[in-house]
């Protein structure tokens, strides 16, 4: 796939030219933090973006993360030769608008609208608006590998043949959460960052954004080709890397295999190289294992710091600078290379032709991603191979205010409401106490769902190998408790446990550890469409012939945060939470039903409902639908009601329509509970009249499809049918 244009902003500067210049000079941009003043001690070294690089025209309410993203997007989209907006946006980000939220909480603000940019999905929506993209705007949140995972997902989207141009990237701003969080883990080098050095003591937390405009159609001019991507999960520990770099090795190996290249084809390796003792050692071991002759390599994080979700995208762009300019950056900050690593990083920039680069990003949860990037015309891009096979559901589970799967499903079949908070005992019941002692609400829900869905399937002898998780808001308890203790202790004693638990991919990494799932482990965060995003990711990225995957979504209701953050949750209304999990593979034999996501577009897309109906018509006859479950987030009611009206008028179906949030309550991943309900109907074979307010409907050969419709800001359709 062709990298047509790129935008980059980091402590190194703004734009490809400025970034190249500072790398050429081998200068570090790491300085004591100035963005906010810590209450105690000297500010730690950080990679901060200069104030001059922000566009002063940005609305004042827009958080720093959003502004960084916009700065990079404007660069990437500046070329007047770009006639069409991208068809999809995929962003990696870990903390979204947290810096603004921290300030609001400090001021004890209870004004809901001020928190509207907190969610990770708001960054992707903001970017999509800026570049007039009306397709899906996805967020990948896999901690520090997010940027690379976003690009890997974009690559697969393009290869599917369903999209021609995708804007992919990563972004994160500095925040108290990450600044004090990494410090609480003793992972920050107080003397500045020096990756691979014998005396390295950690990283420098940083910020930035990188955006890559990727296309399947060869442009006249382009920067580079993305040749391959590889993902893996250590399934080892929530924060520490596998000591031998097993996951790092697998990710790099998968990326090379995906690119169809042998290790000796790599001219330069851009290391993850954070400067922490454990990462650099594990990564070096993995590199030595994969490469008989190690090519020139370096980490730029001694110059830029570690910009978390942005790092993977920024370094993918640095890799293209290496290719375009024949400039391999130095391992800035390195004085005495650690002899235990057994590799020789570049001590100064090396000028030589670069054909192919391997770039690494690894994150909490043992989430690893590698990309292979090649020079223009360096090789033949892989042809599109459309992924048409739907996912086959073999087992499912759900949680709701009514309790576990049977309690929830029975009540829903009877047409009763399951809205409310899941009892903590219900969601810890099937989990060993030693395993969950450190886990708060969201990871417990996730593990409970995962275990149940797997047990429910006919695949219990095979442990799931891949995990696709969605969550609208992530671990709210952990984030809340971290910030509360930070404030209470006057910034002295934040909790390392809460920091590790606060990353959105924390729950999915727990699932990976439980099952030894070493395949792709992707967490998406799309607000009310988080389940749809996880499903889309699974549809594209699940590629395991042997082991099944888990597609799962969970949302926790949080007393303080949920009413502030989720527009559909009002202070006075009762909190609701829950989730759903599905054990899937691509084998219809023995499956309960099949699931696919044929439609996902912004409500701002032209004629979006007509387009939806056309898409559905192309797949099935209108009489095929036995039931339509419609998702109307309360905050979007005035937009969603006419959308549903238009849809029913156009589709002219006799299938009953059930607005499911009236039964599930309002929470971001309610659609997963609705989907679990749909699956349960395939198990029973009948749609009870108590649910629809009409007669019982038998699921037959000719009337065999259930649609889970998402309305509001995005229009989505999940289709379930008999295998």
């Amino acid at each position: 796939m062709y990298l047509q244009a790129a935008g980059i902003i980091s402590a190194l500067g703004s734009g490809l030219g400025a970034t190249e210049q500072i790398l050429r000079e081998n200068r570090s941009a790491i300085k004591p933090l100035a963005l906010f003043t810590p209450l105690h001690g000297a500010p730690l070294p950080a990679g901060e973006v200069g104030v001059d690089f922000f566009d002063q025209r940005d609305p004042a309410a827009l958080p720093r993360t959003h502004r960084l993203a916009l700065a990079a997007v404007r660069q990437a989209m500046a070329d007047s030769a770009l006639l069409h907006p991208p068809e999809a946006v995929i962003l990696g980000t870990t903390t979204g608008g947290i810096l603004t939220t921290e300030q609001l909480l400090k001021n004890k603000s209870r004004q809901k609208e001020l928190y509207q940019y907190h969610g990770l999905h708001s960054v992707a929506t903001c970017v999509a608006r800026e570049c007039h993209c009306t397709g899906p705007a996805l967020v990948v949140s896999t901690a520090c590998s997010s940027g690379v995972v976003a690009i890997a997902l974009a690559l697969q989207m393009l290869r599917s043949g369903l999209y021609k141009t995708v804007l992919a990237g990563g972004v994160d701003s500095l925040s108290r959460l990450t600044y004090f969080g990494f410090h609480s883990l003793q992972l920050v080098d107080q003397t500045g960052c020096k990756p691979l050095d014998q005396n390295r003591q950690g990283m420098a937390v940083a910020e930035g954004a990188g955006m890559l405009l990727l296309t399947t159609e060869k442009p006249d001019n382009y920067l580079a080709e993305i040749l391959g991507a590889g993902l893996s999960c250590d399934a080892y520990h929530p924060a520490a890397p596998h000591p031998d770099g097993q996951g790092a090795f697998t990710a790099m190996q998968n990326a090379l295999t995906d690119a169809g290249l042998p290790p000796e084809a790599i001219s330069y390796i851009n290391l993850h190289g954070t400067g922490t003792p454990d990462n650099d050692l594990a990564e070096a071991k993995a590199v030595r294992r994969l490469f008989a002759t190690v090519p020139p390599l370096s980490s730029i994080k001694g110059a830029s710091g570690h910009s978390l979700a942005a790092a993977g995208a920024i370094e993918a762009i640095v890799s293209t600078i290496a290719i375009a300019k024949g400039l391999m950056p130095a391992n800035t900050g390195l004085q005495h290379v650690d002899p235990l690593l057994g590799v020789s990083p570049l001590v100064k920039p090396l000028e030589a032709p670069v054909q192919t680069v391997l770039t690494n990003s690894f994150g909490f949860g043992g989430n690893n991603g590698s990309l292979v990037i090649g020079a223009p015309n360096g090789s033949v891009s892989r042809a599109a191979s459309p992924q048409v096979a739907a996912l086959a559901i073999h087992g499912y589970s759900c949680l709701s205010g009514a309790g576990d799967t049977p309690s929830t499903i029975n009540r829903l079949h009877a047409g009763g409401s399951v809205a409310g908070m899941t009892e903590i005992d219900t969601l810890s019941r099937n989990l060993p106490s030693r395993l969950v002692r450190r886990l708060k609400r969201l990871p417990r829900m996730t593990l409970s769902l995962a275990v149940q869905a797997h047990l429910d399937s006919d695949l219990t002898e095979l442990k799931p190998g891949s995990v696709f998780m969605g969550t609208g808001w992530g671990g709210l308890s952990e984030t809340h408790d971290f910030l509360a203790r930070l404030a209470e202790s006057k910034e002295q004693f934040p909790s390392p446990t809460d920091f590790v638990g606060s990353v959105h991919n924390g729950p999915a990494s727990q699932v990976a550890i439980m099952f030894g799932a070493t395949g792709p482990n992707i967490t998406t965060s799309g607000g009310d469409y988080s389940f749809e995003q996880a499903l889309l990711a699974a549809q594209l990225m699940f590629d395991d012939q042997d082991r099944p995957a888990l597609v799962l979504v969970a949302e926790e209701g949080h007393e303080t945060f949920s009413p502030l953050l989720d527009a559909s949750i009002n202070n006075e209304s009762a909190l609701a939470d829950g989730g759903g999990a599905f054990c899937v593979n691509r084998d219809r034999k023995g499956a309960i039903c099949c699931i696919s996501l044929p439609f996902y577009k912004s409500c701002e897309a032209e004629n979006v409902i007509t387009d939806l109906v056309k898409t559905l018509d192309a797949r099935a006859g209108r009489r095929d639908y036995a039931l339509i479950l419609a998702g109307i987030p309360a905050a979007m009611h005035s937009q969603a009601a006419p959308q549903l009206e238009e849809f029913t008028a156009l589709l002219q179906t006799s299938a009953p329509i059930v607005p499911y949030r009236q039964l599930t309550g309002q929470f971001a991943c309610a659609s997963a509970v609705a989907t679990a309900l749909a699956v349960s109907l395939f198990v029973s074979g009948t749609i009870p009249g108590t649910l629809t307010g009409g007669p019982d409907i038998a699921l037959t050969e000719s009337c065999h499809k259930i649609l889970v419709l998402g309305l509001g800001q995005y229009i989505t359709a999940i289709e379930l049918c008999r295998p």
Partner: protein
Amino acid sequence: MSDLIEELKVKLIEILNLQDVTPEDFDANAQLVGGELGIDSIDVLEMVVMVEKDYGIVINNQEMGEKIFYSLANLADYIKENTPGAAS
């Protein structure tokens, strides 16, 4: 000394949420990190915070940390030796 050990047992059970452990069956000499209780590097950091907060002692050296947190008895010894104003 034994008072400090008992105090630490209660604190560790609380901050590490060791639900199945009682102070009575908490062996002060058993391997703490990587032992039976499933205590890992994140727990160590949580204990580092507790030691700083409750006893005013900063532990920021990994090598030293490994010795200090080898067992609860070692931790108690270290706290006793380093408590400001304590006779050494």
